[in-house]
Structure formats: structure tokens, C-alpha cells
């Protein structure tokens, strides 16, 4: 790889490592696995760099690679078996106790519900509501039609509601998601 290309990749990787790891964490629910997914995805982007660097939306290309990497890993049975919805206790001592309690409660509820829904629906929820991608961008990342994104989003939100209800959070479900 030429030095200019290497420099461009280095800048891209530094700027995107954090966001990719956060998305990966929301996909899989484990920071160590998320780190592996981010690294593996960036290696794939690096290998394809000479072909892909002229793309307008490289960040979305990297998200696409991340999603495929995660789904591929999920196909491996030892990965399927290690899935866990256990919520770790990671208190933030610097925050206001009331604020912290409310935030932790919301976080734990959402995390448990998110990990309970099917992977592709989880992915679409993360891409739409965490990465703030449009329907068209999400379709590009998921390599599907915009109609599929809309239906998967609707199913994902339904599944999220069901998971919240199953977790005893019916009050949250009553306040419906905006369409």
C-alpha cells in the first residue's frame, strides 16, 4: 500500500474505531467481542482499501462490513452459545445518584430488551436509532430494500415492546414509539 493510502486509512481507522466498537457492542452486548468485531472489520476494510476508499460514505461501508462480520460470527455455534443477556453492574460514581439511578434503569431495561430481539431486527434498531442512519442508508448497510428496512424496523420495535412487556415494563410500552 502506498504511503498516501496508508495515511488515509490510518485517519479513517482512528476516526471510526470508537463508533464501530460502540455499534458492535449494541449488536452483541459484550465489549470484548465488540473490540474483536471492530478490529476484524477494520482489517477487512484495510484489505479492500484501494478499491473502497473512493466511496462517498466509507463509514457506512465499514458499518456494512461490521454487520456482516457479526452475523458471520453468530453463525458459528460456539458464538451462538455464548450469547447472554446478563446485565453487568458498572456504576458511574461521578454522576448524581438520582440521575444515575434513572439512567442505569433505562439502560438496563433497553439493553435487556435489545438483546432479546432477533439479530437483524436488533441491527436495524441500532442503525436507525443509534447510528441515526436514514432508511436509505440503513438499506445500503443491510444490503436490502428500503421496504425491508421499514418492515424490519416495525418488527424490531414490536419485538422490543414485547421484550419490555415480558420484562415487566408494560408502562414503558404504553407510551408507544413514534412512527
Amino acid at each position, binding site marked *: 500500500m502506498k504511503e498516501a493510502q496508508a495515511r488515509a486509512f490510518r485517519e479513517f481507522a482512528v476516526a471510526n474505531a470508537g463508533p464501530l466498537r460502540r455499534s458492535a457492542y449494541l449488536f452483541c452486548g459484550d465489549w470484548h467481542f465488540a473490540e474483536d468485531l471492530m478490529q476484524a472489520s477494520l482489517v477487512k476494510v484495510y484489505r479492500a482499501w484501494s478499491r473502497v476508499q473512493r466511496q462517498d460514505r466509507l463509514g457506512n461501508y465499514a458499518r456494512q462490513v461490521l454487520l456482516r462480520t457479526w452475523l458471520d460470527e453468530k453463525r458459528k455455534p460456539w458464538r451462538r452459545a455464548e450469547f447472554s443477556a446478563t446485565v453487568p453492574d458498572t456504576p458511574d460514581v461521578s454522576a448524581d445518584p438520582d440521575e444515575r439511578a434513572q439512567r442505569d434503569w433505562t439502560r438496563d431495561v433497553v439493553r435487556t430488551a435489545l438483546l432479546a430481539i432477533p439479530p437483524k431486527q436488533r441491527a436495524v434498531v441500532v442503525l436507525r436509532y443509534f447510528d441515526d442512519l436514514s432508511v436509505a442508508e440503513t438499506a445500503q448497510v443491510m444490503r436490502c430494500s428500503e421496504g425491508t428496512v421499514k418492515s424490519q424496523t416495525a418488527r424490531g420495535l414490536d419485538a422490543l415492546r414485547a421484550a419490555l412487556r415480558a420484562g415487566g415494563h408494560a408502562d414503558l410500552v404504553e407510551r408507544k*414509539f413514534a412512527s
Partner: protein
Amino acid sequence: MSEQELRDGLAALVVDEPPLNFDPDALMANADAAARRRRTLVGVSGATVVIAAAAVALPITLRGVGNPNAQTTPGAVVTTTAGAPGFVWPPAHNKVPALTVEQVEQTAHKLQTEARRAFPRAVPTATEVGVDLFAGEAEGDYHAGQLNLNGAVHFATAQGRAAVDIEVNAGASTPSPGKTCVHESDATCKIMPQQDGTVLVVTRWGQDQLQVLTVRHFRPDGVVVAVSGYNADTFLPKPTPYLPRIPVTEKQLVALATDKGLTM
């Protein structure tokens, strides 16, 4: 919960993210080193195929000299650790099915039925056989134009419980036999061209206590059936204990991988 609360909830999930010690130069160096290792492996494989071909040719030649009536055993295989010489992938008659979502789901149900039929025939000692509904990359994953479906077979033997995974890939959507062995560089891998023009690739892999034996059948229509035997049922939410060895044989996995009913 409003849409905003959902966004806030997702954002809150990553507030306690551990520090990121990311070194792009290390990542690039590792990627370059891995690429060099792959190239080296391909070079070694090229040398191995010459040696393997010579090793196979010599006994056949000697057999021909010693016994004029001797014939090559039907189904005899050439075992190498490199590509299959003369085998073209994607094949000339590659079929890329353009299935609708409904057709993919129908195929998934058909494969489940075929697996229920084929598995007890291939592994007659298995009991309590249960076959999952086939799906794509995740449970319930069906989409238009899908080229991959897989399903697990759960079963018991005298040794204990275990599972076999059956994966059907259409449209030559998997790497060639040679590349499969390169990708599985941490596994033992052998390529066995068959007299009917198909190719079998057998890989054996393990990590800690887990053992996986995979047989892939590369067919002329571009379908690859990959059947993996495990020494535990790792497809269950709570995996079963590891057995000392995989309770199905390579021959049994070959019988499944080459079953004509398992296709899409």
C-alpha cells in the same frame, strides 16, 4: 417509551464504554503479516500438490504393472492439501437461484424434511433426533435472493448428546476448495476430487475442548453442502458437555453432504 427515549436508552448503553487503545499501525502490520502468511501457505500448497500427485501416481502405476486387470477403485480420491487440479469454481453450470422470500421459506422447510429423512439413514445409531427449521445467518432470517440456509440436527448417541450442522449454499457463493483450505488455515484440510466431477473438502478443527469435523461437497450446479459434526450440542441455549470425540464419522458426514435431497 418514545423514540427519543429509545435513542437515549441506546446512547446510555455505551456511556460506560471501556477505554479504547486502538493502534492503527499495529492493525495494518497484522493485516499485512496475515496476507504474507496466506501467500506463503498457497506457495507451500502448490509444492504439496506436486508431491501428492506423485505419491498417488506411483501406486497406481505399480498396480497397473503388477496386475493387468486392476482398476482404479470407483470413488477413489486424491488427497491433497492444495486446490483441486482442473476443478473450475464457479462451475460452468452454476445456477444462481433468484428465490422470493416465500420460496426461501419453503426451501427451508423442505431442507428440514430432507434432513429428517437423511440423517437417520446416514447415522443409524443416533437416537432422539431433532432437526431445526433451516434459516439464514440467524434464526428466522429469510430474504429475497438468499443463497444460504442452515439448520442444526440435535441427537443422542451412546456417548452422549451432540449436534451436526447442515449448511446449503447455492450459486457458488462459497470460496473454491483451494481457498476454503487457505481460509481454514488453522484446521487440517484435505481436498478430495471425486470421479463424478464433484469435490469433497474435509476440515478438522478444534479449540480448547471443542472439536469440529466439516465435510463440504462442491457440486457442478454451484451448490456446496457443508456438514459439520461437533462433539457437543453447542446449538442449544445451554450447550451439552463436550464428548471425548465427535460421535459421527467422516464417512457419515460425507453421506450427508453428498445427499442429493439436500440442495436449493
